[in-house]
């Protein structure tokens, strides 16, 4: 070989640093392993979900029909009208309460509260998120059923459910407003806005997609909860007669009937169908939030870059 280096001359490659050394080899090998492990982990996450959906679907779907949704449970059969509407009322009212309080309190924490007050608010919210649902239910029972000398009511259930949902809405809102770039705040205040005007006109549109997904997440969690409702909304097999009477709800239906002997009509099948409706409801909420958030996100393109 001559001194003049030709193409493919290894010594030149070494000089140029193009020949992989041992460490590079190791990294490449590691990379290859990761490339195989990651899909495995992905499947491991997906498998239980798909299995669950398949299991519930195969039990629920064969006999699920429009009448299931529009008739009341009777005897050992019937439909799911009462629990379905009950869940819609409960979650609807609870969302209105938790949504209003959580968004206002979250925005307050992010913008107006002193650092200490904000810290306390966040701490309490974390505490409430960590509180077992059954404890929240028990609290609701004491405060809204025993203390008011009332019975189990839709009201009590919705309020207790909203207490359960509140910290999710609150924390997401706080974080969403907190993640608005400080330069937007300066620009807004510098243009002569009050802090309230900044929150409404500048920060809210930016934080909105995140706030909305927090709200929908809280709804999805709330819809599936049973424990806060058992001691507060009571249980009824008929549609709620009003806000001051006990109500039926999907998760309660599952709780009450999943273990009935299967020769007793099709209560077990109905429980599966209740579960199926809950899952579909959560799915619909998720898709809806993605669609709405996407529209807003398009407006914000290039903003968080």
């Amino acid at each position, binding site marked *: 070989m001559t001194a003049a280096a030709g193409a493919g001359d290894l010594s030149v490659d070494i000089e140029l640093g193009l020949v992989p050394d041992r460490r590079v080899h190791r990294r490449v090998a590691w990379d290859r392993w990761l490339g195989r492990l990651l899909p495995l982990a992905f499947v491991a996450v997906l498998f239980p979900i798909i299995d669950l959906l398949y299991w519930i679907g195969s039990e629920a779907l064969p006999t699920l029909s429009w009448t299931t949704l529009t008739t009341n449970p009777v005897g050992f059969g019937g439909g799911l009208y009462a629990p379905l509407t009950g869940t819609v009322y409960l979650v609807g009212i609870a969302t209105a309460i938790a949504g209003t309080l959580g968004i206002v309190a979250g925005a307050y924490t992010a913008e107006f509260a002193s650092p200490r007050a904000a810290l306390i608010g966040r701490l309490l919210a974390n505490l409430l998120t960590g509180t077992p649902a059954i404890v929240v239910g028990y609290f609701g029972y004491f405060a809204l059923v025993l203390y008011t000398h009332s019975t189990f009511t839709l009201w009590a259930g919705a309020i207790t459910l909203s207490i359960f949902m509140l910290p999710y809405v609150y924390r997401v809102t706080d974080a969403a407003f907190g993640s608005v770039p400080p*330069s937007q705040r*300066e*620009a*807004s*205040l*510098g*243009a*002569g*806005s009050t802090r309230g005007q900044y929150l409404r006109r500048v920060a809210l*549109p930016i934080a909105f997609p995140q706030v909305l997904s927090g709200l929908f997440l809280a709804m999805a969690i709330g819809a599936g909860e049973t424990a806060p409702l058992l001691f507060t909304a009571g249980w009824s097999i008929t549609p709620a007669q009003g806000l001051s009477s006990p109500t039926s709800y999907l998760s309660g239906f599952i709780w009450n009937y999943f273990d009935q002997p299967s020769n007793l009509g099709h209560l077990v099948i109905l429980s599966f169908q209740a579960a199926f409706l809950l899952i579909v409801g959560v799915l619909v909420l998720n898709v809806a939030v993605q669609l709405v958030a996407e529209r807003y996100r398009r407006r914000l393109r290039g903003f968080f870059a």
Partner: protein
Amino acid sequence: MSGGPDGLPPDGTVVGPPFPREEIILLTSDLTVRSGPREILSGVSLAFPRQKVSAIIGPSGCGKTTLVRCLNRMAELAGLTISGEVRYRGRDIYDPQVNPVQVRRRIGMVFQRPTVFPSSIYENVAFGLRLERESREVVDRGVVRSLKRAGLWEEVREDLDRPALALSGGQQQRLCIARALAVEPGVLLMDEPTSSLDPIATQKVEDMIYELKKEYTVIIVTHNMQQAARVADYTAFLYQGHLVEFEETRQFFESPRAKLTENYITGRFG
């Protein structure tokens, strides 16, 4: 009142050209700013003349941004303690009776980086007018007028409903200027408005500043001495929180009074 570091006039002295009273639109006297125990501005006394462009120059960290932020009460938002006086048309804007929100409407601000809102071009300029719940016609007229003054109208007249974020950096900065102008402020503060722009965009902003002073008082912070020399009628030199010199621009650059100023403009430090 303590004296400044070597070569500095004692704190609180009004430095620079004496303007007749009616020419002064904004005046600071013995303005001192602290962050905890640390003094960021020390006894700055300075009078800005109306319908002129005044530049503030000085090495990085000398307090230029802090000074302009005191002029429209933005500094207190960052938790700084401010003492001394700032008078706008004779009125002390730090008087407890005065609402800072109102001050910021009269004394507008443009920041170092363009800070457009993620809405349309139109809505960005309309922001301040909407805050005051102006009627549709007033807002429409204000938007067009401000965009023209900011030299952006020809470029965006067809695209008023397009997202402001789609504009180039230079256009965004002029949009921010239009937004500040829309509420007809008495004074426009600009903190290094061209430092993130290329030479052509910078040129456009400078041309616009030149036009603006026919109607507005402009106070501009700049890192760039050539820029001060090009656009400013008066130039102030700030050093370690002290005002060293405030002079008619030509005099400032050709025969500065203070040795410190001379050293700075001849590039011996900073």
